[in-house]
């Protein structure tokens, strides 16, 4: 295209390239220019997009560790290689960080000179008129007006100012007055705001990763947890966070509410909690989209399930009872699996010697709505319409005493296979029903409580990120909608029979969106024309 497109960009004209110099400094400068060029930014943007793809296609450790393990098991050759290259934690990998850090550096290198240039452009006056206005992309043919150039300059200028043009009037020695006008400075400001906000967003995200922390905990109705690393089942602390940085508060789950449609689709989850520091004086109802917001932490409801209460009365009449959280194996029907282990059962009181192989454990499936017919190991509805539990009883050595930490949701299969833990039988129980085992001990299925999976999160960077994101949109709208234009009006003195007159000529240059300028230019020139008295025409 013509020269017009060369000024399409609002990028300030490059300052004259420094004279070539030999040596390290020059090489460094050349590399720096290369890094901060638009072409490099483009390349890095593409790289960033491409690098993100495997993060969505391969299982990711921070999102789903079991899936990663499964993938590694299924792909024994490529799996470990991908693992070493960080493909199972793409967004935490060194190469992903390298791309966005390079982009950030490039961005800074690009922004600093641009900010400086634009600040200068904001302070300096619009440039003088080119000699040949009629050679500009848009121009108007010279026309005659009454009055001296100096007298006409004022109304022209105020007409332009009304349209928010920035103007400067220059008086030339030959009596000509030139008005230079420019508008659309906000475009570059918008662009700069956008890019600076983008950097701020990255900063906020980084701060969140450094000073933020999360903890997950499962609480059953009636029980509580406190905000400390011991209080959580699982936690992650940011690099700059220590145990003592967690604010002290405790949360108790008083009641969990769930409601379902007849189709089984959930329509409500709510955790009614009491909380406080040192007491449980305050109450809140945590819903899925309504976390409990404390200063320094937010508490979310992210999971729920049933905890059957199994009461075991051992052969000596001692009673053991506790709600055992079962994990849903199918969230649409809430069929749940779990265990209840009673390692201290069947020990005769007063004996110092521990009787071996009399520990008792129950493993089973809880069905909140057991089917009317057929096997009762799959629930047909997530709510408790017809609850029942199918349990297998075991006696022997559960392996808990070995001290090796293990899952509290399943039995140690090793103990069963080696015959150390023997199955006694299985039974389906309704709430209130009792099952008498071969040694006369009994198990009663008392009922259930609900449990809630809570997540506690603190991210000190997120407010920064939000503000930066909003600024990005604002800046973006400015940089995409504001148009940068220049306009010149030349008022040249002209002697004529009717008295002093002025030849008015105008010209314009669009620095962005040149194709829409013509119309706007025409309108502006018409307004300028309307602002000045005309030359009396011959007919008068």
């Amino acid at each position: 295209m013509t020269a017009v497109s060369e000024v399409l960009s609002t990028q300030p004209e490059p300052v004259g390239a420094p004279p070539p110099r030999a040596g390290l400094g020059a090489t460094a400068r050349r590399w720096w220019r290369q890094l901060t060029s638009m072409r490099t930014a483009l390349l890095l943007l593409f790289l960033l997009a491409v690098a993100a793809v495997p993060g969505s296609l391969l299982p990711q450790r921070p999102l789903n560790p079991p899936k990663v393990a499964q993938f590694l098991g299924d792909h024994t050759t490529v799996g470990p290689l991908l693992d070493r290259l960080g493909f199972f934690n793409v967004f935490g990998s060194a190469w992903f960080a390298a791309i966005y850090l390079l982009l950030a550096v490039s961005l800074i290198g690009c922004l600093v000179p641009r900010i400086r240039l634009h600040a200068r452009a904001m302070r300096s006056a619009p440039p003088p008129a080119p000699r040949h206005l009629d050679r500009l992309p848009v121009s108007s043919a010279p026309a005659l007006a009454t009055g001296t150039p100096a007298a006409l300059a004022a109304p022209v200028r105020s007409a332009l100012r009304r349209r928010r043009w920035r103007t400067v009037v220059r008086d030339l020695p030959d009596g000509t007055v030139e008005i230079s006008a420019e508008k659309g400075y906000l475009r570059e400001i918008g662009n700069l705001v956008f890019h600076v906000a983008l950097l701020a967003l990255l900063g906020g995200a980084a701060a969140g990763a450094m000073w933020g922390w999360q903890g997950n905990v499962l609480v059953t109705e009636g029980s509580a947890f406190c905000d400390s690393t011991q209080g959580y089942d699982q936690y992650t602390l940011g690099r700059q966070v220590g145990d003592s940085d967690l604010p002290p508060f405790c949360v108790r789950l008083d009641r969990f509410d769930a409601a379902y449609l007849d189709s089984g689709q959930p329509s409500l989850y709510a955790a009614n909690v009491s909380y406080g520091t040192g007491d449980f004086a305050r109450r809140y109802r945590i819903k899925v989209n309504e976390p409990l917001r404390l200063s320094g932490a937010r508490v979310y409801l992210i999971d729920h399930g049933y905890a059957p209460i199994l009461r075991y009365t051992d052969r000596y009449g001692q009673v053991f009872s506790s709600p055992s959280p079962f994990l849903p194996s199918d969230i649409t029907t809430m069929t749940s699996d779990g265990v209840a282990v009673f390692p201290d059962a069947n020990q005769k009181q007063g004996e110092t010697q521990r009787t071996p192989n009399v520990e008792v454990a129950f493993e089973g499936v809880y069905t909140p709505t057991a089917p009317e017919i057929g096997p009762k190991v799959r629930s047909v509805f997530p709510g408790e319409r017809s609850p029942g539990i199918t349990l297998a009883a075991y006696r022997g050595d559960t392996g808990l005493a070995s001290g090796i930490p293990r899952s509290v949701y399943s039995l140690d299969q090793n103990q069963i296979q080696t015959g150390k833990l023997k199955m006694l039988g299985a039974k389906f129980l309704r709430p209130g029903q009792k099952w008498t085992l071969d040694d006369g001990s009994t198990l009663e299925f008392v009922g259930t409580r609900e449990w809630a999976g809570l997540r506690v999160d603190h991210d000190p960077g997120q407010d920064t990120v939000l503000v930066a994101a909003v600024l990005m949109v604002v800046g973006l709208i400015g940089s995409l909608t504001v148009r940068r234009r220049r306009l010149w009006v030349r008022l040249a003195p002209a002697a004529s029979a009717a008295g002093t007159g002025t030849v008015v000529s105008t010209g314009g240059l669009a620095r962005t969106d040149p194709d829409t300028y013509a119309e706007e230019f025409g309108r502006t020139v018409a307004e300028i024309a309307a602002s000045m008295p005309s030359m009396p025409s011959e007919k008068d």
Partner: protein
Amino acid sequence: MPDLATLSDQLLITTILLYTAAMLAYGVEYAFGRRGTVARAAVRERVLVGAGGLPPVEVSLPSPPEGSLPEAPVSPGGPAGRTVPDRSPLDYVGGLAVVLTVIGALVHVGVLVTRGIAAGRVPWGNMYEFAISVCLIAVVAWLVVLTRPKRVAVRHLGAFVMLPVVLLLGLAGTVLYTRVAPLVPALNSYWLKIHVSAAAIATGVFLVGFATGVLYLIRDAYDRAVAAGRVARFPASLGARLPAAEGLERTTFRVTAFAFPIWTFAIIAGAIWAEAAWSRYWGWDPKETWAFISWVVYAAYLHARATAGWRGRRAVWIVVLGWATMMVNLFGVNLVITGLHSYAGLQ
């Protein structure tokens, strides 16, 4: 009491039929139209400005770049630039296409309204409804483009917009179809309305930008074939009846640049919602990841257009790529990859 959910399903079929008919009518106008009808509106007139006491000011405009001038004689009666009321049967076919599109769009609104009433909530709670909303936005965006008189005359290109819309609607009605149900608790948030509607608007507008981008590429290939003295082969041969490449490129940019801030906003609204629902504003869930990829690709497009050597064909290819990433997000992520956004309602 009629079953509104069933009515909604039937209206969807009606919508698809109407759009298909509109597509055929646009196609007829495209296939049999003279090139002149296309080029006529592309010629810019000299603007005469007469105001106040000054004699009319003649504003001279940049001469239209090569390619935007009519290549064939325009209407027999007058020179280019004059709007001669000249109605051929094909104009009526084109008019019919627009009427069918408008009726189709109204029925389309009906699909969503009945669906929303039947479900008792906003009608974009799952992927089926989202896809239908996106299509409505695309059709409305197309109608808006049609009402802008000063732009290149594009009516006969409607087939290129209706084709992806009809395909998407067809896919929605078959592959993605989900029965009416209220929202699951996680989706029960006013951020849903904001986030999803912004995403649907941006996606619909991106779709129009994709369509004009493809047209640009066809026209560009045609121009290059002509310049090289070759016979343009399909699909470049379609370019003979397309408006000038420059106008198509500009429209592609305008439309895409319009959608980009909306897409940015949609992502931000999604992040705000995620902060309330999932405890973190960003978690590289597959849906988030692909939204990010699309955003970066479209940002790359905006940069490319301002980079010498990239403007034009190469930049428009990025728009095509951007749309491909949007489609991966809509279909690939919902159907193949499972993440937190498994709200598609598909089992």
